């Protein structure tokens, strides 16, 4: 048998039909659904008098529109948001899919609760009408975003028409330096390969720095595979993965667990597998990173300066000019001198318990600077509950953070959590596009540790320097 990559193995295990022209029908093991990209798909089913083929493999949760203020009983004020969430309530009930409504403590961002509830398992194919479905690749599952027409296709047929992507290996050797996190790894990769560097590929992340990450860190890395243009990101499952999955609500039990484990242990890329593209660098080359522009590839180490558009080539010259104007920045300004108004901790990239622990650790003996709006939006109701149980919520609230309910929140501002025009945000989310967090809002992407450091000083800050100087308590 010819050597295979992990992607090849998962692909082959889910191939229902392959046409002569190369278009393939791939079986979908888990279909995750949220309220924004599904109403038209369910409507399409109704119009064609079709059913959901596998409701037991379909999991729905409202997350994008959900307000994150504490009083959920008062409902959703924005009429359009409310209608969209109510449509999901109705569709989930009518079509009989698994559902976590707003009132359920397990509600949260779809990419947080899939793994949390054990829906996400190694070797699966997982799709969702959301580009950050890439997150689930951390388990060695082939997971990617789809559009609404494809959501309807999966609902109706439990399959997806696909052409196979190419294989790309991203190897991060060595060990991460102190103060550098999974977020910095994934931003560093995009900084090197660009937002189109992964287009046409499925990326497998490997190397010692990836192996040493927790499952949550691996999810952060895979989450932003889409920002690098890739269809999906993958990390081969190992003991860390199995340990995380074991005992979760929908993970296999007993004899099925053993059978699953036997198969999961075969899910790795063979030594002599063919790679169409390889990127390798050492973790020691990665510093804490921030974005300066309006594309996730606009990444620089925190001790750098805002670049001049002249330092780029081709279409990127005008893009950088446009970005700097939008961001209100001048070339040559030290990144560390950029003052911020708001800090957002949350999103499917960095809204898990370890992220909140990291922030709490940085905030130990420190406070959010006077005048800075700092909000923490846990990724799920269960993450929130755990943080409260661990005493993190009390510490963070005492340090000056707003402690909010679960949802996508200010990552994309479909709910009331938005930036005002010109407002500048240190954000743990995944996109710094123009208007992403609110019309005219200015986003700097970074790790939770770096965002916490910015909250303390009110400007972009090197968390490693903060550690030495600013403890006031």
């Amino acid at each position: 048998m010819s050597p295979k990559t992990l992607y090849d193995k998962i692909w082959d295990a889910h191939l229902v039909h392959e046409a002569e022209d190369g278009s393939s029908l791939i079986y979908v093991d888990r279909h995750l659904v949220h309220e924004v990209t599904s109403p038209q798909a369910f409507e399409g089913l109704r119009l064609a008098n079709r059913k959901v083929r596998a409701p037991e493999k379909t999991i729905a949760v409202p997350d994008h529109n959900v307000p994150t203020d504490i009083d959920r009983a008062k409902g959703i004020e924005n009429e359009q948001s409310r209608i969209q969430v109510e449509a999901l309530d109705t569709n989930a009930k009518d079509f009989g899919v698994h559902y976590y409504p707003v009132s359920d403590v397990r509600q949260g961002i779809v990419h947080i609760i899939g793994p949390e509830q054990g829906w996400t398992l190694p070797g699966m194919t997982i799709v969702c009408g959301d580009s950050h479905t890439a997150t689930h690749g951390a388990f060695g599952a082939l997971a990617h975003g789809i559009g609404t027409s494809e959501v309807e296709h999966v609902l109706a047929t439990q399959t997806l028409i696909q052409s196979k992507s190419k294989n790309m290996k991203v190897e991060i050797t060595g060990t991460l330096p102190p103060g550098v996190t999974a977020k910095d790894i994934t931003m560093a990769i995009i900084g090197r390969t660009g937002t189109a560097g992964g287009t046409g590929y499925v990326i497998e992340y490997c190397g010692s720095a990836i192996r040493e990450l927790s499952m949550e860190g691996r999810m952060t890395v895979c989450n932003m595979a889409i920002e690098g243009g890739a269809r999906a990101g993958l990390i081969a499952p190992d003991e860390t993965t199995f340990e995380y999955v074991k005992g979760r609500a929908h993970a296999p039990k007993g004899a099925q667990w053993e059978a699953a484990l036997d198969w999961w242990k075969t899910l790795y890329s063979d030594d002599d597998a063919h790679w169409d593209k390889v990127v390798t660098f050492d973790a020691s080359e990665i510093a804490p990173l921030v974005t300066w522009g309006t594309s996730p590839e606009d990444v620089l180490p925190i001790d750098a300066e805002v670049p001049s558009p002249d330092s780029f080539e081709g279409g990127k010259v005008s893009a950088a000019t446009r970005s700097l104007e939008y961001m209100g920045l001048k070339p040559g300004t030290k990144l560390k001198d950029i003052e911020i108004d708001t800090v957002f901790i949350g999103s499917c990239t960095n809204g898990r318990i370890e992220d909140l622990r990291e922030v709490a650790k940085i905030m130990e003996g420190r406070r959010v600077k006077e005048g800075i709006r700092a909000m923490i939006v846990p990724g799920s109701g269960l993450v929130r509950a755990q943080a409260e149980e661990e005493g993190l919520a009390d510490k963070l609230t005492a340090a000056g953070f707003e402690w909010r309910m679960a949802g996508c929140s200010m990552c994309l501002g479909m709910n009331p959590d938005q930036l005002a025009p010109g407002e500048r945000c240190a954000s743990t989310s995944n996109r710094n596009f123009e208007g992403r967090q609110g019309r005219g809002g200015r986003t700097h992407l970074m790790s939770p540790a770096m965002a916490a450091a910015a909250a303390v000083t009110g400007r972009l800050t090197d968390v490693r320097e903060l550690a030495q100087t600013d403890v006031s308590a």
Partner: protein
Amino acid sequence: MDKFDHLTGIAAPLPIVNVDTDMIIPKQFLKTIKRTGLGVNLFDEMRYDDNGNEVPDFVLNQPQYREAEILVAGDNFGCGSSREHAPWAIKDFGIRCVIAPSFADIFFNNCFKNGILPIALPQAQVDLLMKDAEKGQNARMTVDLEAQTITTSDGEVIDFDVDPFRKHCLLNGLDDIALTLEKASAIDTFEQQAAQSRPWV
């Protein structure tokens, strides 16, 4: 799905790289539960000022491009989210073909599901078409999907590639779901086998 076979129309130049889906259709318009009506908000934040007035310089607000049916754009067009609202907005405006050096994967797929033809060409050819588009409404391009050619206003012919299955679906306006349901027995068989080999799924 609407068919796409050939199109002769005005091409609008949008020489920006990394045009993301938040630019194409900002999030406040994703709250709809319909597929139609988004054209008026296409490129909303570039097209209108803070008071909702048109920005005269923006290409689709210029008189010669208001009826554009083709868009010529920069590299990595449609990057960002999976929102199909992006192609819905493009189509609702009246644009049926987007030409760029490269496209983001999900956006590219979504176009084909909505009767929009995305064409990826080498930068030099996009540059040529961009110049042609900049001539305004008298410069009409022709896109012929059957022949896989673009003809500029000067009569220059450029060939393009397209996936044969997607070409077939676009030319005939075929519904993917109906096509797949013809393979229902293959799906049944797969499910029965998977129930044995991976019962935990």
